[in-house]
């Protein structure tokens, strides 16, 4: 790790978690280096964050090393629309299914991964559902029927408070008597 820190701008977050920001051009080469020249052999997570205000996504590759005592998060900002990133299936075979999920949930393309077809959602016509401009509630209301009785939407917290206070005072009254 010390060695790596001399070559990359790695920030230490916790004793076992490090973070590294790279640009989209150097993403694949950095991961390649970490995989083969360093001992980060496991890709344990592949995440995507939607920063809609800044109009960009942030990909996060969580790598774990051979001794399992250190995690490195390689982060990369990408555009929100029609972006394609080089797939890392050749480096980490398990990335195949992770990339497939991100493609379905955010619409990120991965070049070199040929499994980017339907995953959990079959025949999905709408926006990828994890993008923040996707209006979940409107989608649900237009696609599913609700059972009556769910729509009253009462704030039960107040009721619970009142009930608890009543029970408490009743108990106290009993104890006093």
């Amino acid at each position, binding site marked *: 790790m010390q060695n790596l820190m001399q070559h990359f701008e790695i920030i230490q977050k916790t004793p076992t978690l490090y973070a590294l920001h790279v640009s989209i051009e150097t993403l694949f080469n950095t991961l390649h280096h970490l995989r083969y020249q360093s001992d980060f052999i496991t890709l344990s997570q592949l995440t995507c964050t939607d920063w809609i205000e800044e109009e960009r996504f942030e990909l996060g590759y969580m790598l774990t090393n051979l001794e399992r005592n250190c995690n490195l998060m390689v982060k990369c900002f990408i555009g929100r629309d029609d972006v394609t990133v080089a797939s890392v299936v050749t480096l980490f075979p398990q990335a195949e299914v992770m990339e497939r999920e991100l493609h379905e949930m955010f619409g990120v393309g991965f070049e070199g991964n040929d499994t980017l077809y339907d995953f959990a959602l079959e*025949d999905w016509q709408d926006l990828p559902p994890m993008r923040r401009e996707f209006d979940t509630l409107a*989608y*649900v209301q237009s696609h599913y029927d*609700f*059972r009556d009785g769910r729509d009253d939407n009462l704030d039960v917290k107040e009721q619970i408070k009142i009930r608890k206070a009543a029970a408490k005072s009743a108990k106290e009254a009993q104890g006093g008597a």
Partner: protein
Amino acid sequence: MEEGFNAYRQSLESEEQSIKSTQSVVEQAIAWFRAHSMFVLAYGTGCGAIEMPPTFTSRYDIERLGVVGVATPRQADILIVSGYCSPKTLKRVIRSYEQMSDPKYIIGLGSCTINGGMYWDSYNTIKKLDDFLPVDMYVNGCMPRPEALIEGFVKLQEKIRLNSSEAGYIKYRDNYAHYRANQERLFGAQVAPSYEENFAGMN
């Protein structure tokens, strides 16, 4: 008004009387056999499925009621839809249900099958199972304990013994157009082939 065990026994006896007055002996026997040999398709959707292994194994041992798990829909009498159902799952559930042979019953396990449960605003789960399939018995709770599921089975046994025309598979046959329309609306072009021709020669 009697209470406790006597009241329970009396209610059982009066029910027995009503069964006896409406069914012939052979019908009674068939209904009794049916109610005590319920074969459940070993299949689970959603998190409620995790309560099924304890129900079926030694702790709660539901086999004493004649409930056994089987591996294929062709041998099963009961389908437990044990929780939330995404459209993708529901397609498989409907296909499994249609492959089962009559008489067949559905138990909806958990709040999710009733009204969406905690997934009421999820883009990928259905909210009312009985729009798509005829549910015979709902067991509510999130998630229901095995005791609740057993209670559901016992209630279902009573229902089977009454041998009413309210049974789900008869409803499905009679109102197929309604269920089919709902399925088509949800699945669009991906809906399974129609099941209607299989009803020919029945009734």
